[in-house]
């Protein structure tokens, strides 16, 4: 596995969830995040990657370092062309799930990251963008 601060990884199988976690762990560690923040980021990525696998079947994860207004961080985007989320607000409620999970994925990932945006259209797919900033 190449060590990269940015990259793209296709998610299509269950074991890709573990590979995605490794990419994210590597990038976050290299960027200088603390162990707790690395764990937060990797765990959020695990939830969001699993969402893609479970609900859309396949999709892509892209990550890149951020340098904005003197701040540095990591951005990860999870995009799929699956069924979309009919009610994003509902999906953000803890305990709400249409799958077999705990319903913690989206709200949990939001708590673990500093920023999260969701764009979703029924029938067209979902893009979840999360960011974590390095503490100075």
């Amino acid at each position: 596995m190449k060590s990269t601060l940015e990259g793209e990884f296709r998610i299509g199988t269950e074991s890709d969830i573990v590979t995605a976690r490794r990419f994210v762990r590597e990038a976050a560690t290299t960027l200088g995040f603390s162990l707790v923040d690395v764990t937060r980021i990797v765990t959020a990525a695990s939830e969001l990657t699993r969402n893609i696998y479970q609900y859309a079947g396949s999709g892509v994860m892209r990550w890149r370092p951020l340098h904005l207004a003197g701040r540095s961080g990591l951005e990860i985007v999870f995009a799929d062309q699956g069924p979309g989320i009919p009610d994003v607000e509902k999906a953000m409620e803890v305990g709400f799930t249409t799958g077999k999970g705990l319903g913690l994925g989206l709200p949990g990932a939001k708590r673990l990251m500093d920023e999260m945006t969701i764009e979703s259209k029924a029938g067209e797919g979902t893009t979840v963008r999360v960011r974590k900033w390095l503490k100075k």
Partner: protein
Amino acid sequence: MPAENISVIKVGQVLLVTVPPDPDDETVSALQEQVLDAMARHEAKGLVLDISTVQTLDSFFARTVAETVQMVALMGGRTVLAGMQANVAVTATQLGLTLGHADTALDVDRALDRLLASPSQGRSR
């Protein structure tokens, strides 16, 4: 890829299982099956899940662990989760994970002490 190797070690009437650092879903599910199988085979009274090397505890993993705790309890056993790392504990809490009725211990020694010291408790639950 087949599930990672999981070994179930018997210590007295307690089973000790070490969870691999970064298990995939398949490995987590396989772990549950092996644990239940071993509980029945050895008529064990307790289970120690050593999670001291685990780096990512996500919701799937947590759900499976919570389920396993419940299943072991139905079989008359007690489960102690041993050695959760501080960073994992922080993350699991923020994610909103609960691990059911699992007892926890700082390390495997303390977990074994607790289970081996109170053999009767397992059957009474």
